[in-house]
């Protein structure tokens, strides 16, 4: 629902990393997106493609989205199950004493960059 907002945050973060690493261009950004992260990959993709056009270092950067399955752990029967199918209630023992192990990730995993040519002789 707030894909554009998070795209702006993501671009800001990548710009900072690019500046720290003195890169000329960012070719691609890989995002890890949990199944229950509330961000819709297709919309994120659209917002990304619109927003990077206004950028410099990031102008042609593609975004790759890796999905992370949502898994919940039941503290009573100590089993894991898929969150999206069963929600908060454990399908094995009907306990509500469960927590999300993974699936709400929203991480910048890595970026692929082209470096600036090394600065001439000394400074």
């Amino acid at each position, binding site marked *: *629902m*707030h894909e*554009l*907002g*998070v795209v702006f*945050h*993501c671009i*800001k*973060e990548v710009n*900072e*990393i690019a500046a720290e*690493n003195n*890169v*000329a*261009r960012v*070719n691609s950004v890989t*995002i890890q997106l949990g199944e229950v992260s*509330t961000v819709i990959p297709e919309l994120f993709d659209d917002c990304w493609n619109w927003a990077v056009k206004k950028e410099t270092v990031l102008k042609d950067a593609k975004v790759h989205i890796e999905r992370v399955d949502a898994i919940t752990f039941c503290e009573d029967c100590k089993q894991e199950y898929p969150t999206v199918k069963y929600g*908060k209630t454990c399908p094995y023992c009907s306990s*509500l004493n469960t927590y999300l192990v993974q699936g709400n990730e*929203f*991480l*910048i*995993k*890595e*970026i*692929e*960059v*082209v*470096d600036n040519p090394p600065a001439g002789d000394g400074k």
Partner: protein
Amino acid sequence: MDEIRVIEIKKSIFEDNDRDADRLREDLRKKGVFLLNLMSSPGSGKTTTLIKTINALKGQLNIAVMEADIDSDVDAKKILEATGVQSIQLHTGGMCHLDAEMTRQGLDNLDLDDVDLAILENVGNLVCPAEFDTGSSKNCMILSVPEGHDKPLKYPLMFSICDLVLVNKIDVMPYFDFDLALCEKYIHMRNPKAQVIPICAKTGEGIDKFAAWLKDQVKKWKEN
């Protein structure tokens, strides 16, 4: 040919906002200003609740209000007319939430000298505002009776980040089959630490309890 290399990052996209939010919280603590982030669905009664509560706290706390909406300034005007406290309208430009930077910009437009309590009325939305730390001292949300007691199950993140849940419009509870006990149970499933106060902004019921909660929080904030 340009050489391509991969930089591994593994950083949360919310990290820069979280950093901004922590910085803002620290700045506000130094100034002695308690910031309440008030969230809810559209139409749950945020503005009415604020008006009643601000008037109940007259002479006890100095209050300033920021109204965040996608458009219009009806809320800020309403607050100013009904309470006389400093009130400004923030436009999010279509954005569904406020982040820490937008909150800081809003606060910059308020005169915070002598203010004890700044209230941010976030965009009416139970999804997005929960993802973005605004830098507030505490988070509070309103769930109104017509929305149904099952909302903590449907919007778990919002309920899990709130310190206080106000259940508003309790005067119409009989007409909506709203089960307050069940609602509290669902809230505590998501967030065992959340406090719940039933209120009715229209009749004023429970507003004294919310006002007392605010006074207590502001006091604790200033002591730290």
